Every structure is written in structure tokens, then in C-alpha cells.
């Protein structure tokens, strides 16, 4: 099942609307989230809210085909304003899920909806810094399960270290990133190594570059998109364009 989660980024005030294939594991630490559950590849969502556990819970489809939320022991959440712990709760389109200071609205997507809805963006969209706490990392996971290339469709797994970008391959064969589909874990390759630079790829809040972006925001940003200077799909796509180094090198031939 493909779902869309909507919430407002408390740091930037901007809306977030990424889509995921279920199951979706969520929590604070990417490395703690499973990459596979019962043989299914898992979409991983990092929510940098200090009230959440490193691995807080999972949204999955139960045997009746309903979307359900299952929390890890000691984890808490709320559905439509009602707190709950422990038992599995099913969700409908429009249900509101309270996770720490965040409120996420769930939408189950039919196939046409999935095609029309705004695609998840490359960077920043799945990082939800809450309150004044800084995000654990400026990079977060889009789906791993949904990232798998289907025939004719480019793989939307994020690859790269310095500048994560869409894989874009239409086949896993000879793929250097997932080794022909054998490596299913961390779609943000080596995110743990990248975490030596806290807030890498993030320019909001008190992070580096925020002065610069705030300085530019009033005149240039669109309403509702204030301070959203994280990487976007367009930014990721820009990496795919080969740099035009033509007519620069005097020793070229």
C-alpha cells in the first residue's frame, strides 16, 4: 500500500507531504530502523523529535489489508487526539497521528492518486525537526521498499555520499549501489559516516547557512515555503546533469 503523510515542519513552517510504500518504520535514528520486516523491504522515516524512540514504531498493512500502526514497547503515540500504547490500531485516510510534537495526517493512496500526488523530495522532506531541537541529521530516508525499480521505472533510491541523488536506474542488474539488489539496507549509503557532520545537508533553524537563507527568504521565497532550503527533487536532479566543462581547458583535445 502506498500512503502519504502530511505534517507541518515546526522548524520551517513548511508543509511536508512524502509518500511511502508500507511498511514504514519510523523513529529518531536511521541505524536503528529495520530495513526488512517479514521479508518485506521497509521504508524508513526519520523524525528528529526528542520524544521519540530511536525505533518508535511501524505503519504496516495487516492481514485484513488495513493500515495499522504498531509501536515498539514503551513508545507512545496518539491517534486523532487519543493517546494509546500497546495495541495495534488501524488507520483510515484522514486520521491524525501524534508522534511527539508532530501531527501527521495519513492518506491512503489509490494508484492514480499516487501518480498525481507530489513526489517525495530528495532531501529534508523526511526530516521533521521538532521544537527547538536540532535534527539528528539533515538527511533522512525516503522509502527503500518503494525505491525498488519496477520495469521501465527509474529507481528512486537515494545514493551518494556528499550529494545524495536519485539512483535512476531502471534495473538492478549490475547496479553498483545495491549490488544487483543484494544490498537492501541503508539507501542513504553510509549515513552513519556522514553523521560525523551533524546537520549535514540541513540549512534551517540554527544550522549553518540559516542566516544566509533567512536573509534571502522574504524577497524570494514563495508563501508557505519560507526557509525551505533543504535539497529538493530539482536539486537532486541537477546533480544528474553533467557539468559542462567545455571551453575551459587549454590542454584539452
Amino acid at each position, binding site marked *: 500500500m502506498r500512503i502519504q503523510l502530511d505534517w507541518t515542519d515546526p522548524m520551517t513552517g513548511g508543509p511536508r507531504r512524502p509518500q511511502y510504500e508500507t511498511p514504514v518504520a519510523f523513529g529518531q535514528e536511521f541505524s536503528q530502523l529495520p530495513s526488512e520486516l517479514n521479508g518485506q523491504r521497509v521504508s524508513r522515516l526519520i523524525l528528529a523529535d526528542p520524544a521519540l524512540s530511536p525505533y518508535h514504531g511501524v505503519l504496516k498493512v495487516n492481514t485484513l489489508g488495513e493500515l495499522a500502526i504498531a509501536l515498539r514497547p514503551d513508545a507512545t503515540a496518539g491517534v486523532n487526539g487519543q493517546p494509546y500504547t500497546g495495541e495495534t490500531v488501524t488507520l483510515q485516510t484522514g486520521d491524525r497521528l501524534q508522534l511527539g510534537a508532530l501531527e501527521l495526517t495519513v492518506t491512503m493512496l489509490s494508484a492514480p492518486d499516487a501518480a498525481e500526488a507530489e513526489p517525495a523530495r530528495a532531501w529534508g522532506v523526511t526530516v521533521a525537526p521538532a521544537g527547538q531541537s536540532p535534527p539528528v541529521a539533515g538527511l533522512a530516508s525516503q522509502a527503500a521498499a518503494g525505491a525498488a525499480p519496477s520495469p521501465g521505472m527509474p529507481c528512486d533510491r537515494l545514493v551518494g555520499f556528499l550529494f545524495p541523488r536519485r539512483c535512476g536506474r531502471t534495473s538492478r542488474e549490475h547496479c553498483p549501489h545495491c549490488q544487483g539488489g543484494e544490498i537492501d539496507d541503508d539507501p542513504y549509503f553510509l549515513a552513519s559516516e556522514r553523521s560525523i557532520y551533524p546537520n549535514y545537508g540541513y540549512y534551517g533553524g540554527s544550522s549553518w547557512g540559516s542566516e544566509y537563507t533567512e536573509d534571502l527568504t522574504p524577497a524570494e521565497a514563495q508563501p508557505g515555503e519560507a526557509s525551505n532550503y533543504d535539497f529538493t527533487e530539482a536539486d537532486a536532479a541537477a546533480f544528474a546533469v*553533467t557539468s*559542462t*566543462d*567545455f*571551453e*575551459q*581547458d*587549454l*590542454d*584539452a*583535445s
Partner: protein
Amino acid sequence: MSQETWTIYALGGGFGHLQRALALARQATRQQHVHLLVNSRYWPWVQPHLTALFDPAARANLQVSWRSPDLGRAATRAWIEHSLLTAPGDRLIVDTFPRGLVGELATLLSRLPIPRILVHRDLNPDYVRVQNLRRFVTRCYDQILIPGEGSQVPFADLPTAQLLAPWLLYAAAELPSVAIARSRLGFAHDPRPLAIVLAAGRADELTTYGQLLATLHDHYPQLCWCCLAPNLPPDCPSALWRSLYPALAVLPAATLVVGGGGYHTVYECQALNRPLIALPRSRLYDRQQARLQRQSDHQPITIVRSLAETLTAVEHQLCTGNAVRSPETWQFTSGIAAAVAAIRVL
């Protein structure tokens, strides 16, 4: 009647641009002045060999302006603008780069009221697309000469394009015999077949060739190995290194050639029908891999990617006997004479 002056713009790294320009100048200077604009790093090394390449009368008609490629873009642009605006000559022949190596010709050509000829070596299609070069070439050039590269290159279908044989420095009749070529290399008394590693291309690629030669020399002592390079490649045994120019003057001695996929390496081997084991190099504008694949239908080329593949290819050439066969005579036509005639009628 006063002689015409042809200006040949041949900026670009490596040997190719310089050597094509010299080949054209060698023929053209018999009847007119030629002003050569070059920036190859190899020019200071090539310069002393000009006396052997040009007869005295022709040499007097040749003027060469050279600037180092380290000069910088702005200074190079200024130099070219100054050269072409103050003394454009009667024909402008531009090698490979329609807009100039750093785009300096883009605005300059329209200010030069003389016939403009593009010598069309293969070009990266991305560059052609990014700069919309087809439109530019159609508008700015009166003639396109395609020496040896065939009809697969980007501007081959333009109406002013003319396909020619490859431009080589020497005509078939000018080449020395195998014995003379071997003696020039200092291997007159070595009975073994001679294999030559042509270390052309960028200076920083010399290391690879040096290592290659050292390994080949160790593995195949039944062949006499020799490396032609301007400078001694690192790791190359100095006894096997020869600093001779041009390579074509000694290439008849080779029974096997190992080199890159550059213009002259490929077409000189084709002219002499020598088996070539080629490591295609990555270039910003040239497509060596494409050239080698194209030419492998017409000449004995083995494309290799690594040292291991090179060793296998040499082994194969030895097994088939190709590496030890040495034809005494060769037949080829250089496209230079036709090019000079075509430029003259403009």
C-alpha cells in the same frame, strides 16, 4: 603574384591538432605562406625536428606562433584575437574546435572576411548539442573537411562537408624502408620483430605507458620492445625509450603497435596496416573509443582496457603471427593533397 597566407588555428592538447596542422602546412607551404597558431605542450619538442620535416624553401614559408597551454584563458583569447585581427591571412583553417578552444572564435569569425574552413575531427556530441554547434558551423564555415573520420562524425551530413583520407605527415613514397626505420631506432642488428609502444596523448599518461612497456618487455622477450615518447616515461627502461619525431618516420619498423586511440596512432597504423593494440583514453572532446570501434572494421585493432587485456592481446597477436609479420611495401593515400586543393579553390 603575391603568395596567399593561410592561417591555421590548431590549438588543443596532445599531438593531434599540431600534427594535422603540420601535415597540412608541409604541403601548403610549397606554394603559399602558412601561419600556424598552436598551444600544444609538445611544440617545443617538435620544433627542432621541423628542418627534417620541411625542405628549406617550404620552411621559409612557415611561421609558427606558440603559447603555452598554461597561459590562461583570458591571455590565450587575447593572443588569438590579436593574431587573427591584425593578420588574418587569406584563408582561416580551424582544426577541430569550431568556436575555438576556449570559445574565442565565436564572436571573432564574423569579423574575419575571409574563407573559413573547419577541419572536422570527431567531437563529443554533448559539446555539439550544448553549444548548438551545427547551427554555428553552418553559419560560420564555408567548408568542412573531414580527414579520415568518415561519415559518423557530427557535421558529416552538412552540405559543405567533404570526406577525405586521413591526414598524415608523409606520403607513402616518402616513408623509409623497414631496415632504415629499424636503424633509426637503433635496432638494426636485433633480429627480433619490433613492437613499438606509442606513448602519445597527454603528458600525464606517460606513466601508464612506461609501466606497460616494462611489463610487456618482461613478458615477451621474443619481441624487441621500444617506446616512442617525448620524455622518458616513469618506470620505462631507458634503453628502450626513443625520443624521435615524427613516429611515422620509424613506424614501418614496427610489426606491432601498442598505443592509445588518438587520431594519428590509429590512422598511421591503418596506413601501414600494422596491428594496433589500443587503450582508448578519455578525452573531453575526442571519442577515442568510438574511433577505434569504427576503425576496427577496416584495420587490425584490438581494443583493450587494462594491462591484463593488453598482455592477452599481445599473446594473441603472437599466436596468430600478426605480431611478427612485416610488409616491406605499403599503399596508402594521405588526404592532404586533396585538402590543399579543396582549400585553394574556395
